[in-house]
């Protein structure tokens, strides 16, 4: 398995994102209040870096480029967003955030299943 110890649980403030790069894979860790989520680093729309363009408010992530939005817990699209956020498996163990990076997740330009 490719579970990676990424950071301490108190390193990512509630309702915020923090970028990480482990073994050459870039991703974002989000603190959603009752746990953590990990997404690819870019918006699935125009591949803007959500580290810069992402706004977190009330459990909703908004890319300020074209206002695509997602439920931070489920990754499901809201409002004008056409694609969900992809999510890496995440678990919390002894105050550490662990992310499974077995396979790098990337948004498919021609994804017909979105």
């Amino acid at each position, binding site marked *: 398995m490719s579970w990676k110890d990424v950071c301490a649980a108190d390193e990512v403030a509630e309702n915020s994102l923090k970028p990480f790069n482990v073994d050459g894979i870039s991703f974002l860790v989000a603190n959603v209040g009752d746990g953590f989520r990990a997404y690819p680093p870019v918006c699935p*729309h*125009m*591949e*803007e870096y959500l580290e810069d363009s992402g*706004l*977190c*408010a*009330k459990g909703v992530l*908004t890319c*300020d*480029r*074209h*206002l*695509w*939005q997602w439920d931070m817990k489920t990754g499901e699209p*809201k*409002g*004008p967003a*056409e694609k969900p956020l992809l999510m890496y498996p995440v678990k919390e163990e002894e105050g550490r955030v662990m992310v499974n990076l077995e396979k790098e997740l990337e948004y498919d*330009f*021609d994804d*017909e299943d979105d």
Partner: protein
Amino acid sequence: MLIEIEKKGQTHIFEAAPEEKLLFAGLRAGISLPYECSTGTCGSCRARLKEGNLEIGWPDAPGHKNLKAEKNEFLMCQATAKTSCKLGVPSKIEPFRDDDLTPLHHQASISNLSMLSSDIMRFEVNLDSLISFHAGQFFVLKAPGIDGYRAYSMVNYEVSTNTLEFIIKQKQYGSFTDWISSSDRVTNEIEIFGPLGKATFHPDENHDLVMIAGGSGIAGLMSIMEHGCKVNYFDSHKASLYFGIRTWDDMIFVERLNSMVKRFPNNLSVQMVASQESSDSRPPESIGKLSHGYGWVHEVALNSLTLGQENTMVYIAGPQPLVDATIRPLITEIQLASGMIRYDSFS
């Protein structure tokens, strides 16, 4: 040349003329290709070439910065087809809304140029036939002998018209501005394409309005104000326009705005917000019934908004830093739904 796009099992086919930008060819065929600025800057109209040959156009377009060359990505607003092509696009392709106005190419001529302030010029574009557009939309204009189109929002609004009114900030875009400012132009004929843009006003949506303009961004918001006045929208809906300028000398459209405010004194307000005037400077008397403020226009406007204004549509028009600085607090502090914010990104 035939252009084919397959998306979600559906095949969309349109004809592109030689030298015609693929985005414009698709839009005029009623296919809702993704775009924002339509002039090479924002990158929203990126697509992938799957078969065929094309000319990518303006090689230094700022919108190229996020494209993947190895995946044959290009900007539809810049590219022209050399052969029939098959393309991929990343967004949904849906039919235009029923009342959407299909954009078309037009030949037109410019007239009635005048200076409104030290650096804002007003001009009109005259067409041979009547056209319609939504308040808040823009056209792209191309001058003879100058590469590429420039986007300008209409100032006026009519249900249908053969005159489009624009303003242009001098020296803002260089070549087109130089051309239109030149007294020795050999022709007044230009090519235009439109209407374009999604930051539009629709009275049947029944929203209160907050409009935030920086500099020449006032153009599209004037069109919204004109439309609202024509249909007496402000008899029953509140609207506030915040117009950001540097100094009182930059005030334009003061008489037109005054007549609007006088007509709807209970629901319509306009505030001129000067970023480079000290708070002890007073605006000239010509400001009339318009109020005034000091500092950054978005900060003044945001101070007027409160949590829970669920029926307020916010329009933002102006330089990209103004748009960015306004959107962040609207989402995170005012917690406005993203569907209640409208703007067109030109960078």
